[in-house]
């Protein structure tokens, strides 16, 4: 069994195959904004809508004059905020849109500075624009926090790649067929809670700590019978990920070499924390245990249990959580 973990550029796992020239660009999945990100997204949409619909109200609130110019400017700002909010909530990369919001905040601040300067010249009070500056600065701080958090999660360097392989004494077609039955993957992939398939899309679920569910939908992106299955998350997934399993005959009639590559982008926020708890420090080791159980299943018909590891093989790091090697007793 061989295993590796690495953190590297999010690339199509298929492009990793030595000698394979077919680089296919970035894998696409979607990352949802965390709670702060979505709150800011909705806040932007709300404020933007007010600026668009009632520019005069907004202008008065910040102490600008009720001129046609300032109404138009306010409308433009509003449109920008709505687009930004929608971007944060709906795009694949909320982090970028949050940085867009930060840029918008800076525009707001410079506009407010102009307003204040004008009022100073005209001798009007500064209370209103300063109050507005205060709130915009507060929002800017939140936008920066959210944007940094998201872009860290979206940064290419944060991608986790795990690879593991094993040799199984079965024909490639048997292994291919068994793996293709995604719904039965949880029999040997213990971190999966369930996989359901409906017309071409599979719905994957992991149960995290405290019953928290992490979900994603995936589609098969390449399917070569008895050779290869590649899948990738689509739509609004909790975790962007892609995986490939390859089956090739082992030399000298030794069965089939099975190699799995997984890539995923840990999500920001609570979902990310939950996922990290499930996958642990070494996702490669977890994958190696999945493959060990797959091999047991395909060669012996079942996952092998000992009293110390009653549910089957687990990573070495979990030794401390083992039972002593003595009978378990009736549950």
């Amino acid at each position, binding site marked *: *069994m061989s295993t590796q973990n690495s953190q590297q550029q999010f690339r199509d796992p298929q492009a990793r195959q030595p000698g394979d020239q077919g680089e296919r660009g970035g894998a696409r999945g979607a990352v949802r904004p965390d709670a702060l990100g979505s709150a800011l997204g909705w806040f932007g949409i709300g404020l933007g809508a007010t600026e668009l619909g009632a520019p005069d109200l907004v202008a008065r609130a910040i102490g600008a004059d009720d001129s046609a110019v300032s109404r138009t400017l306010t409308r433009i700002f509003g449109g920008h905020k709505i687009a930004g909010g929608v971007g944060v909530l709906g795009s694949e990369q909320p982090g970028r849109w949050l940085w867009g919001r930060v840029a918008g905040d800076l525009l707001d601040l410079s506009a407010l500075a102009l307003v204040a300067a004008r009022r100073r010249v005209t001798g009007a009070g500064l209370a209103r624009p300063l109050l507005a500056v205060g709130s915009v600065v507060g929002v800017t701080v939140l936008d920066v926090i959210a944007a940094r958090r998201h872009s860290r999660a979206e940064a290419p360097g944060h991608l986790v790649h795990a690879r593991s392989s094993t*040799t199984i*004494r079965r024909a490639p077609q048997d292994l291919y067929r068994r793996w293709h039955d995604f719904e039965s993957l949880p029999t040997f992939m213990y971190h999966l809670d369930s996989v359901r398939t409906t017309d071409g899309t599979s719905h994957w679920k992991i149960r995290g700590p405290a019953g928290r569910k992490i979900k994603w939908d995936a589609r098969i992106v390449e399917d070569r019978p008895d050779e290869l299955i590649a899948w990738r998350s689509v739509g609004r997934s909790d975790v962007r990920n892609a995986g490939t399993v390859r089956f090739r005959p082992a030399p000298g009639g*030794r*069965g089939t070499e099975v190699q799995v590559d997984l890539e995923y982008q840990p999500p920001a926020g609570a979902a990310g924390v939950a996922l990290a708890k499930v996958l642990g420090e070494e996702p490669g*080791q977890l994958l*190696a*245990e999945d493959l*060990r159980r797959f*091999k*047991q299943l395909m*060669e*012996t*018909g*079942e996952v*092998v*249990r*000992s*009293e*110390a*590891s*009653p549910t*089957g*093989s*687990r*990573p*070495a790091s979990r*030794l401390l959580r*083992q*039972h*002593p*090697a*003595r*009978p*378990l*007793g*009736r549950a």
Partner: protein
Amino acid sequence: MRANCWLGRGEVEVRQVPDPQILNSHDAVIRVSKTAICGTDLHLYDGFVPTMMKGDVLGHEFMGEVVDVGHDVETLRIGDRVVVPFPIACGRCNTCLAGDYSLCENSNPNASLAEKILGHAPGGIFGYSHMLGGFPGGQAEYARVPFADIGPIKIEDDLPDERVLFLSDILPTGYMGAEFCDITPGDVIAVWGAGPVGQFAVASAFLLGAERVIVIDRFPYRLEMARDNSGAEPVNYEESDVREALLELTAGRGPDACIDAVGLEAHHFSHAAHSYDRAKQVTRQESDRPFALREAVRNCRNGGVVSVIGVYGGFVDKFPMGSLMNRGLTLRSGQCHVQRYLRPLLDRIRNGEIDPSFVITHRLGLDDAPHGFTTFRDKEDECMKVVLTP
């Protein structure tokens, strides 16, 4: 049920534990009729094998009656009398099919732990640490036996338990040690260690056609047993120089093959040498004391075979690699692939070619297991082999 549990270095205790149950569909549960204490248990007892846990049930040499079978078991029925081999093997992986059962690729659920320590993982073994699977052992009233169609051999005639019990381990182990030597007519074989494993290595070397077998130990009663039962020529290393004795007995050639049936707790006649390795062991600079192994390598004839059936757990110091390499020696080793030898050795027992019960010196109840451990470890009361009846 009652079971002999490991509690820590030098401490075992017979405790009440739950009865075993079927966990896999290829399992059987055995009511243990006889079980034994092995030299390997002493390594666990003395704390030399990593990944033991307080409360682990010991014992890998046992036999008994089938009392329950999982729904995929095909060859065994309730009531069958069976001897259980100590390595757990699936019988379906490439390694099992090649006959190397103790290296089964599927029987060790804690393989990743063994990989960390050993590089790659061997198969599972009953009552023998977590890195070898975390399976409870057979020094108990009952034991669960995984892959019941692959391991246990049915004993259908009325051979008494004591004649067949050692098929579980030490008889095949001694036999494999001799088989490693590729014995041809005229060969002289030297065996380090006259414990139960050494006794069967000696007997097997003769069965396989050795001209002469030399046995090396320091306990006269053990050397005498090898001489009287199998016709070995004893060398007591506390009384004579091993190298000189071997040169003399082989007219300067050196033994054609050397068997290490001592393992990692070897003793050294020179107090200074013993203290050197003991100190390294205690300070964890080496885990195993390889006196017998060093001697076996250095004394083997040019181009000969060194057969290591004594157990080692980790690392040794001052291994004479130069001697091994420059003189073209072959090193062979392994936990015994017991399943390979069950049928042919049962036949030899049935034919009367060998009666393994000659090594038994102590017959105790299971509850006396702790006493059995100290007696066997300290070689008190001329102890050779302890058999327990639950």
